């Protein structure tokens, strides 16, 4: 056990969060290795999304540490965490509805490409930004919808854009909250392929209720129940885990 472990991409230890009297996250420990595709599953209301909110800076933890590549980020505001290379998507689609699809993606690339709050350089002249935007749009298959306001996209397209916004900033740690919810089989498959593609060379942490997707994609799975991680293991062993069976999977996965 002495060999030098690589620094984990994300490491949570004893993270806690309460809302009023309710403790929702009750001491979560979680390690995600770099380059890993890690899924979080668990019953509704277990606190999965809350956990994402804590990691991404949307909420401030009441206790515990959250480290991003060894650096403590607990309690930082979202933009600082994002600038350190962590990006996330939302369970409820969260895009810029009145901006065009192109604009949506381009905005998401700007900070990482070093343009920050620049109000002195023309955005159209930034070729690098344009290339990157095109690249992302092609990747999420929305190039031909580039001029459309994001708000009029269909549900599936909006979900794809949501992922596009998440990956555009070239963050190498990515959190996806139920990327396939509400999609038909065919679309789910497309999204899974997309996720597989964009998560190459990146670390992926993902919440998902669709077990096919989870077992298809994940290298490791953590099970969150009542604000605690009750198991964190490879898909096979999770599938076999009795506690998980009872707490979560029910019969459908079988």
């Amino acid at each position, binding site marked *: 056990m002495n060999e030098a472990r690589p620094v984990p991409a994300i490491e949570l230890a004893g993270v806690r969060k309460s809302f009023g009297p309710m403790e929702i996250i009750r001491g979560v420990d979680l390690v995600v290795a770099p380059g890993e595709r890690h899924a979080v599953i668990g019953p*509704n*209301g277990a606190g999965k999304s809350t956990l994402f909110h804590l990691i991404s800076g949307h909420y401030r933890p009441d206790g515990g540490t959250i480290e991003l590549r060894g650096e403590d980020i607990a309690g930082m505001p979202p933009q600082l965490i994002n600038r350190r290379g962590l990006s996330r998507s939302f369970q409820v689609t969260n895009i810029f509805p009145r901006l065009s699809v192109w604009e949506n993606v381009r905005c998401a690339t700007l900070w990482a490409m070093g343009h920050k709050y620049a109000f002195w350089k023309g955005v159209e002249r930034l070729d690098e930004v344009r290339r990157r935007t095109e690249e992302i749009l092609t990747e999420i298959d929305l190039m031909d919808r580039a001029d459309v306001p994001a708000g009029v996209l269909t549900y599936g397209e909006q979900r794809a854009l949501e992922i596009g916004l998440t990956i555009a900033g070239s963050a190498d740690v990515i959190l996806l909250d139920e990327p396939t919810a509400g999609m038909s089989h065919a679309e789910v498959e497309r999204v899974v392929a997309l996720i597989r593609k964009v998560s190459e060379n990146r670390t992926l942490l993902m919440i998902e209720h669709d077990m096919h997707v989870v077992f298809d994609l994940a290298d490791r799975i953590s099970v969150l129940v009542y604000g605690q991680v009750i198991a964190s293991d490879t898909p096979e062993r999770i599938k076999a885990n009795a506690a998980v069976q009872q707490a979560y999977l029910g019969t459908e996965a079988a």
Partner: protein
Amino acid sequence: MLQVSDLHAYYGKSHILQGVSLEVGDNEIVSILGRNGVGRSTTLKAIMGDPAPQGRITFRGKPVAGRSPHEIAHLGIGFVPEERAIFPSLTVEQNLLLGIKRGVENPRWSLEETWKLFPQLKDRANAPGGALSGGEQQMLTICRTLMGNPDLIMIDEPTEGLAPQMVERIGELLQEIAQRGISILLVEQRLVIAMRISHRVYVMGHGQIVFEGTPAELLANEAIRREWLEV
């Protein structure tokens, strides 16, 4: 109970529903299946009066089309929308109370009974609706509609975002609801559930009904399944 014939609906200029006909009988569970974006949700919304429907819709013999949503609700049709439309600043309990309609006698569900359906909700009774987890919101929307004591309930993708065992629970719940003498018009992505609990199914493709029959018949119809359901 509900009869829809030649229903058309538009969003702005796009002609979404292009002559949908369907019906739901007493105590019946009927599902509408189909791919994303074919207009299933729009069908339910048009029956509720928004977008304004064109065509004939009757509920227990009374005309529905042309009425405003609140009148339609008073006729006895309940609707659980796909986007859930939880009132985020109201507490869970207030959300439920808003489901109660004026002048409804002997409702089938009291507040207490709805709590029993999903005990998890009761724990969160005083939390703001907006703070609920995705799954909890889904439960709340269903309960809220039940509080209005509808005779027909139209549910749009109730299992979306639910954990597997919860999906099971919803399936059972729908059957339970039907047993209390309520008809259900269901839009569902998960074929397994829909096929198991429905009495009849419709398959929709591009604003029109392309198949009508029992689950068994659909199972047998390979062509329809491949073309319109991609399975």
